[in-house]
């Protein structure tokens, strides 16, 4: 195969666009797992739930799926609050969050899948958008809108979450929960309430990422399982609890996948991605930008 600049440039663009999508899927995990220490293995199930809500509204009313997902994100926020409250009362408060909490989120994952199967059936669903089949070309470099639009919205969302966490009182409280809950209590702040709201934000981001997913590829109820490894890998690679790290980790994995697929063979992509993860953890156990 002849390696040209166009091929190289396209590999970079494809990797960045893919990384943007991975960042949207992983930012919620970075909050729940990285900051709150809640192993929400059901995160991809909420992504798929977001996909189906975007699908149903797009199918019935023709609204853009990403606009729909942003509009319904408060509902995901409320769902996240309720879920964390149950998790806290049943497991965390009793100190049983490690194994039983994990089983709880596995249960949520399967229940969500089965509910989606019962409501929507098992067939693949996809949405129609104005930009879905449009590709911008700058010389020999392609910008498929199917990936560009989710990428742009993802950047807004991820950077927005980072700014919120670092520039608001509540955001700093979330970061404090991640570091020292006892200190937070001594300052008169209820860490459970802070965790509840932060977990709700993580679920809201999953709903939006779901719309990205269904814009990019067809979705069926069990497809979320395929992303469990990926979202945790991005979170760990970037550094637990670091949003910038998550963004960087997502770009690294996106670029690794794109370059491997283009120049070596796509079947090597997972091995290269996870090899990178292992190598990073060997030399920098806290991840790329972890503390």
């Amino acid at each position, binding site marked *: *195969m*002849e*390696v*040209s600049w166009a*091929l190289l440039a*396209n*590999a970079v663009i*494809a*990797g960045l*666009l*893919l990384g943007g*999508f991975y960042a949207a899927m992983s930012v919620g995990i970075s909050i729940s797992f990285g900051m709150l220490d809640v192993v929400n293995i059901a995160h991809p199930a909420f992504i798929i739930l977001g996909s189906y809500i975007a699908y149903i509204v797009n199918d019935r009313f023709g609204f853009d799926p990403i606009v729909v997902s942003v509009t319904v994100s408060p509902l995901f926020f409320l769902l996240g609050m309720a879920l964390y409250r149950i998790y806290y009362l049943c497991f965390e408060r009793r100190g049983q969050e490690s194994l039983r909490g994990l089983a709880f989120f596995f249960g949520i994952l399967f229940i969500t*899948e*089965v509910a989606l*199967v019962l409501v*929507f*059936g*098992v*067939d*693949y*669903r*996809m949405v*129609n958008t104005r930009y879905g*089949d449009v*590709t911008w070309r700058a010389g020999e470099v*392609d910008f*498929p809108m*199917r*990936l560009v639009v989710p990428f742009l919205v993802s950047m807004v969302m991820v950077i927005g979450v980072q700014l919120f966490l670092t520039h608001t009182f509540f955001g700093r409280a979330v970061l404090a929960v991640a570091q020292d809950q006892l200190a937070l209590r001594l300052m008169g702040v209820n860490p459970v309430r802070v965790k509840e709201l932060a977990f709700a934000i993580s679920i809201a981001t999953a709903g939006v990422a779901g719309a990205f997913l269904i814009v*990019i*590829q*067809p979705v*069926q*109820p*069990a*497809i979320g399982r*395929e*992303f469990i490894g990926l979202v945790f890998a991005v979170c760990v690679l970037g550094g637990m609890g670091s949003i910038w790290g998550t963004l960087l980790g997502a770009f690294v994995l996106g670029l690794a*996948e*794109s*370059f491997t*697929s*283009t*120049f070596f*063979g*796509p*079947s090597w*992509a*997972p091995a290269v991605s996870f090899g990178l993860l292992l190598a990073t953890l060997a030399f920098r156990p806290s991840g790329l930008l972890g503390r």
Partner: protein
Amino acid sequence: MLGNSVLTAPRRVLGALFIGLALSGTALAQQPLKIGFGMSLTGPLAGNGKAALIAMEIWRDDVNAKGGILGRKVEFVYYDDQTSPATVPGIYTKLLDVDKVDLVVSGYGTNVIAPAMPIMMQRNLTFMTLFGLNVNSKFNYDRYFQIMPAGPNPAVGWSQGFFDAAMSMNPKPKTVALVGADAEYPAMALEGAREHAKKTGLKIVYDKTYPPNTVDYSPIVRAIQATNPEIVFVASYPPDSAGMVRAVNEVGLKTRIFGGGLVGPQFAALKTQLGPLLNGVVNYEFYAPDLGSKFPFLEQFLAKYQARAAKEGVDPLGFYLPPYAYAMMQVLDQAITATKGLDQAKLAEYIHKSTFDTYVGKVGFAKNGEWAAPRVMMTQYHGITGNDVEQFKKPGRLTVLSPKEYKTGDLKAPYHENKK
């Protein structure tokens, strides 16, 4: 009154025993005929699995309405294999040892048929299977039968029409790219495609597989484009078929013929989702509405199927898998009726030597359990506008390129100039 009885106590006991035995004999004769299988009701191939299940249930209801098989009502015992090969051995062991089913058939697809084979072979069971590609090439089991019309050499027969169409182009192509998912079916299909390339003297310029959970296929398509192949053969499952077709359109792949083994465009879900992006793609199908007059028996089935499919949210067209799922059960039904029992050896022997009348036409099996002659239709999509499902029910969207007896037109090449 008791004193007036003509029966002594021992006679009464004997009489009761006799009546009991007679009744239990009747009950045995009326016990349902249990057929067990695993089926993909969740997971990536659940859409197809559910459609196949509906077709099989229609068959069961039809048979039971006529009084069952050998006077026994048919009952299904089935479990969701989650489209996961790992679940299959457990499912069939349970069906045979715990549920005590009388017969087993396969679920949908190569991935779930292959792991069931060792169990069937250990227990010498006749195994009717649904859409496995070339599974028996590794097992050589004489009681294996497969209903997909790929022919006696399935890996090669599967893509025969595609390579025939490719080699009919003038000038003859010299290079081919092969790409498929890392899974059982694509591996088999690619194996056949390599044989075609060898036979026809095509130079393979790209031969790679990709993980099934790939999100963006454009790097793969660009890598293919960089090798400038004249033919691109793809063997993929539904989500990757959608991803490949989209990526090919986004990248603007320039090649003379593209497609071959994409699973997915046969169903309404992908047909409607991809819509005009499918124009120009050459791909296999088992039915085209343009051939309605050659498949008159299908109409009766499709009427029943489409009514149920609409309610259950699965493929509303039902042209691809469901008629063959029904036909698979018809073969089994006719074999049981003819051999008057469930003797596995007799069933296998009868299926080998007979020809069966089914909804998909006359079916006979080769020595390896595959169709005696291939009937994979290679078609080219054209004239698709918008995403409306109704257009796919009417003639005019598919040109059948092969086999000869079903041919409705010629290949339009190159691919990138015929996407209308």
